[in-house]
């Protein structure tokens, strides 16, 4: 589904209508003043309107009324085009956000009142809009969750397809890292009690919609710097145009107001000025289309600068979880007995690894044994023992990491044989995870678990490397296993046996070296690292704390999304840069159109500068202004889609873009203006 969204049509009919209306509303000077370039065009348009009236009243020195009127209209359209670009970007973003917002219309909520009328914990049905932060509500099978929150009691399967587009239901339960629920999703089974974590109107989605709509959109630092540069160019051209008046006086060349304003509007970077905010909005919109909610435009931009990417191994680099691939009984241990012990130890193990051990045993012809319930005690995995197992009568079978089992075995006075230790090492060196099984504190063999690396991931890391992004794999595996997988997948570095604070330390270390770091996380213990990272992407399924700490939320819970986000960020910056270059390069041709036109009447020798052989001064000026106006809508699709990013190295990329947008920016207007002139010369 997310694929379909990305290929959505550039211009929807309804969006275009909406944007057209907005283009006129945005003419309000108070709204336009934030864009200095377009604002000056608007002032020029207003002056031309006055000139038109002046000419109507009988002024002769300014050329014909029709000519002045046409200039006025073209300038007016130029402003509208600029507004339209911004409006259509907003409309697209809004449409995207609206489709998400539909999921969260007012739904009835079963609110829990701590002190009710008759009993405590009374439940009343209220509209979701009345829920406040900190309130509790209940959801049962078939209910739509009214508000973002965190499960405090119970477990439920939830259909999140309204948000992620993924139809498979997910499990959410209290405690742990999967306790977060999103408003608009549906409970498919069971019963949960949820604590509201966001105030109405402050959910991430609300924030995102506000960002796109411009209500709270602040210019990013980069956008500000570019605006300064563009304002600088605008001032240069104000100086050029104002000083041209006395220069013209000196040369006895009267210059009409229409010519002055046309020259000015053509020279100032209207193309990028008109498209600048559209580019920014489109960046956030592209992120949204990738099902990522950004909390600020700056976060998208920063993503383009990322130097280091921290990626969890599981789910990102490898498919899902490890699987058992081999049983290695110790010396003198019967294979069948060993496999049986393995199966017994995994019977109550609900982890994918545990299940895969039984699956492997079944392929070897084992069947699940039937046990007498009263004699059996299952020992659950705990973080302290780092092992799990089963007690059947006097038999104590344990399975766990090598060092935890070794500790246990050595405490009982036994030792792990060197052969078995070698086996552990071999398994680890081959990228597998060794699990050691003990029976009554005697090590009896090793189970080999293997990771399956995602196909194509190697190429993606190559691509990242070419972008200059260093990838770091974060894994709980031991260093040997981690190294093997790191090499096989092609990541640059890894953190093995990672504890949450290791991530944090790694991020800090990179940042001290001046690098920008991105990471993805979901658990509460990821929150500090998410906050520390320059770009922290929280999974939507993650805890509220994680989502608060990060600056983006990924609705798909897809760990590979980080790579996409980096590219979106780069595209955003590149689109701005290339269109700025294009816009300024255009001026060369416009000069050659307008400057001879200004002076040719009194200095015929300057015909030598009219290298495009434009028909007449009027046709030259009109052609330049028309070209200047229509180039804006022509470039809207590029502004919305973004310039394609190719990881070919910075210098090669610069060369490519300089050729296309720099040199192209010089040549295209020569052709365009000449063609328009051929048409305009029929009348002028």
């Amino acid at each position, binding site marked *: 589904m997310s694929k379909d969204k990305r290929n959505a049509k550039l211009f929807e009919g309804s969006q275009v209508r909406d944007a057209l209306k907005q283009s006129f509303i945005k003419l309000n000077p108070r709204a336009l003043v934030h864009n200095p370039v377009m604002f000056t065009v608007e002032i020029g348009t207003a002056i031309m309107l006055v000139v038109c009236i002046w000419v109507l009243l009988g002024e002769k020195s300014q050329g014909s009324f029709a000519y002045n009127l046409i200039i006025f209209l073209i300038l007016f359209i130029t402003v509208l085009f600029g507004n339209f670009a911004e409006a259509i970007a907003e409309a697209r973003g809004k449409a995207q956000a609206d489709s998400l917002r539909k999921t969260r219309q007012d739904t009835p909520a079963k609110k829990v009142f701590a002190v009710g009328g008759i009993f405590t914990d009374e439940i009343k049905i209220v509209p979701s809009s009345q829920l406040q932060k900190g309130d509790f509500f209940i959801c049962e099978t078939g209910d739509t969750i009214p508000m973002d929150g965190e499960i405090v009691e119970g477990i439920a399967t939830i259909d999140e397809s309204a948000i992620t587009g993924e139809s498979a239901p997910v499990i959410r339960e209290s405690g742990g890292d999967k306790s977060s629920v999103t408003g608009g999703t549906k409970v498919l089974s069971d019963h949960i009690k949820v604590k509201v974590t966001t105030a109405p109107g402050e959910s991430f989605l609300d924030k995102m919609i506000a960002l796109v709509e411009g209500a709270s959109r602040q210019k990013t630092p*980069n956008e500000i710097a570019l605006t300064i540069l563009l304002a600088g160019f605008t*001032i240069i051209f104000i100086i050029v145009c104002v*000083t041209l008046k006395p*220069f*013209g006086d000196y040369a006895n060349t009267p210059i009409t107001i229409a010519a002055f304003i046309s020259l000015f509007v053509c020279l100032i970077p209207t193309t990028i000025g008109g498209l600048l905010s559209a580019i920014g909005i489109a960046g956030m919109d592209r992120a949204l289309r990738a099902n990522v909610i950004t909390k600020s435009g700056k976060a998208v931009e920063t993503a383009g600068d990322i130097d280091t990417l921290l990626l969890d191994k599981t789910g990102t680099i490898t498919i899902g979880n490890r699987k058992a691939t081999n049983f290695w009984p110790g010396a003198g241990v019967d294979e069948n007995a060993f496999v049986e012990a393995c199966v017994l130890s995994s019977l109550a193990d609900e982890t994918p690894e545990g299940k895969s051990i039984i699956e492997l045993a079944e392929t070897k012809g084992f069947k699940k044994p039937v046990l007498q319930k009263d004699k059996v005690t299952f020992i659950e995995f705990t973080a302290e023992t780092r092992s799990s197992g089963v007690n059947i009568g006097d038999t104590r079978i344990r399975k766990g990491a090598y060092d935890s089992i070794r500790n246990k075995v050595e405490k009982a006075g036994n030792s792990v044989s060197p052969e078995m230790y070698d086996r552990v090492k071999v398994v680890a060196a081959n990228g597998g995870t060794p699990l050691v099984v003990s029976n009554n504190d005697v090590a009896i063999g090793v189970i080999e678990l293997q990771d399956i690396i995602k196909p194509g991931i190697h190429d993606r890391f190559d691509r990242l490397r070419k972008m200059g992004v260093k990838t770091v794999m974060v894994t709980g595996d031991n260093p040997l296993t981690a190294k093997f997988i790191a090499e096989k997948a092609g990541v640059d570095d890894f953190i093995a046996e990672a504890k949450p604070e290791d991530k944090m330390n790694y991020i800090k270390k990179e940042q001290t070296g001046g690098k920008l770091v991105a990471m993805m996380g979901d658990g509460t213990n990821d929150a500090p690292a998410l906050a520390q990272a320059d770009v922290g992407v929280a999974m939507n399924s993650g805890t509220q704390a994680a989502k608060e700490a990060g600056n983006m939320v990924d609705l798909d819970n897809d760990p590979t999304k980080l790579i996409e986000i980096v590219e979106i960020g780069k595209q955003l910056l590149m689109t701005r840069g290339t269109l700025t270059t294009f816009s300024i390069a255009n001026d060369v041709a416009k000069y050659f159109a307008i400057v001879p036109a200004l002076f040719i009447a009194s200095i015929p020798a300057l015909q030598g500068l009219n290298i495009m052989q434009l028909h007449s001064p009027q046709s030259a000026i009109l052609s330049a202004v028309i070209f200047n106006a229509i180039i804006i809508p022509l470039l809207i699709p590029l502004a919305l889609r973004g310039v394609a990013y190719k990881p070919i190295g910075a210098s090669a990329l610069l060369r490519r873009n*300089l050729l296309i947008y720099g040199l192209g920016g010089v040549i295209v207007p020569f052709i365009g203006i000449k063609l328009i002139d051929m048409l305009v010369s029929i009348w002028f």
Partner: protein
Amino acid sequence: MNTEIIGIVTMFLLTLLLAIPLGRYMGKVYQGEKTWLDPILGPLDKLFFKLGGAKPDRDMTWQQHLLALLTINLVWFLFSMAILMTMGSLPLNPDGNPSMTADLAFNTTISFISNTNLQHYSGESGVSYLGQLVLMLFQFISAGIGMAACAVVFKAMKEKAGDKLGNFYNYFIKSCTRVLLPLSIVVAVLLLINGTPMTFKGKDQFISLQGDTVSVSRGPAAAMVAIKQLGTNGGGFFGVNSAHPLENPNYFTNIIENVSIILIPIALIFTMGFMLKKRRLAWMIFGVMTVGFLLLLVPSVYQEMKGSPAITRLGVTQQLGSMEGKEVRFGPAASAYWGITTTVTSNGSVNAMHDSFTALTGMFCMLGMMVNSFYGGVGVGFLNFYVYIIIAVFISGLMVGRTPEFLGKKIEAKEMKIATIIALLHTFLILAFTALSSHLYAHDPKTYAGWLNNPGYHGFSEMLYEYTSSSANNGSGFEGLGDAVPFWNITCGIVMLLGRYLPIIGPLAIAGILAKKKYVPESAGTLKTDTFTFGAMVFAVIAIVVALSFFPALALGPIAEYFSMK
């Protein structure tokens, strides 16, 4: 013909040959390493530090550097005003030249302290020898200030994260005693041998072939000529500058003086390479500057050697090329070469009359000053180029999808604001003041008739040239302009002041701010700034900014003149 070309090629290669070792030497000087001149000149430095009460080991922030720079300039400004306005009655005045009026002294002082050396007076009759000596001192000071400011920026570019950028007084004194002084002595001696006078005696006399008694001005010229060339000052001893037979006696001295013009500006690029250990970057910068320089030089030499189309139309053959306003001992190629070298650097000394260059050569001279950073003035040329690099880095950073960074430092809004203002300033000063004078002249040509020798396009070029020269701190002039009047003295003074200090303060501030920022190590995604591609980008930025700013003005001046003469 061919010998003339060989002459200028030799000059350029000779400059390059000397500039590389000189650059390395200056790098050592600014980094405080030992040099072979230490034993001789060390005591002199100590004397200066003691006299000035400066502690050369005190590390300064960029703000403190600025304060030191401005203090030095203010002190010497007052000193010079006092001398120039009273020199008529002070010693060392054998020819009895008068003191200057206040507006002329203001113009002259600013002109020399700002390294412009626009001379609205004539050396023979306008200043006493004491005045000349003060002006000569200023040629050391202003050049030293520029080089010291440049050294601060080099230090800042090298700094990974800190605000201590060395000591300004140290850079300043060392620039004067370790670079300018020794080089000046060598050049002065070579000139002396070839006949440039060095005396405190008054005018000499001889009886010409016609039997008239002719007075010949002389004075301590050789010393002044040396530093005027080396420090991109350009303030000549005699009125017609290096076209004067005593200031520039023969083709050999012409080579020496012309090499001196661009020697230090080129050497400073290599100094940066050595100090930062970024030789490729130095060669990239040198390459961009040289391409720009050649694009101005080659058509100029061609135009001058081809001769004036107006004279061709009269049916006169011009085998020597366009010789109006040129010295026969130099010829058109060497004159055009000098004309371009003196305008691309902010030198401004001349060996031919720029007013008489063909229309396009005049334009290329102006373009050189409008860019003002193809080599540029000592120190300040690099500072101007630095601003263009910042803008180019910003745009190209965006084009490759990465927040722009230069030498590991991120370029953000604050730096862009300063860079934009500085890039604007030059355009503003030139166009606004030319507009002012055009406006005055256009509305009252009678009152201001004395300003322009040639009304029309050429008159416009004269005014445009004067302000371009002032803003670029160049100092050469289209001498057809009647400029020794209060209007030109004062407006040019203001333009020179703003055109000097703001373009030093701006880059210094940018470099200082960047020095403090966190250093970002290079990665594969970092845009390399020492590549051909980036060089092309910088060149494009310079070309576009200058072309866009000045095209209409040039179209009304030299371009109109060119097409109407064709």
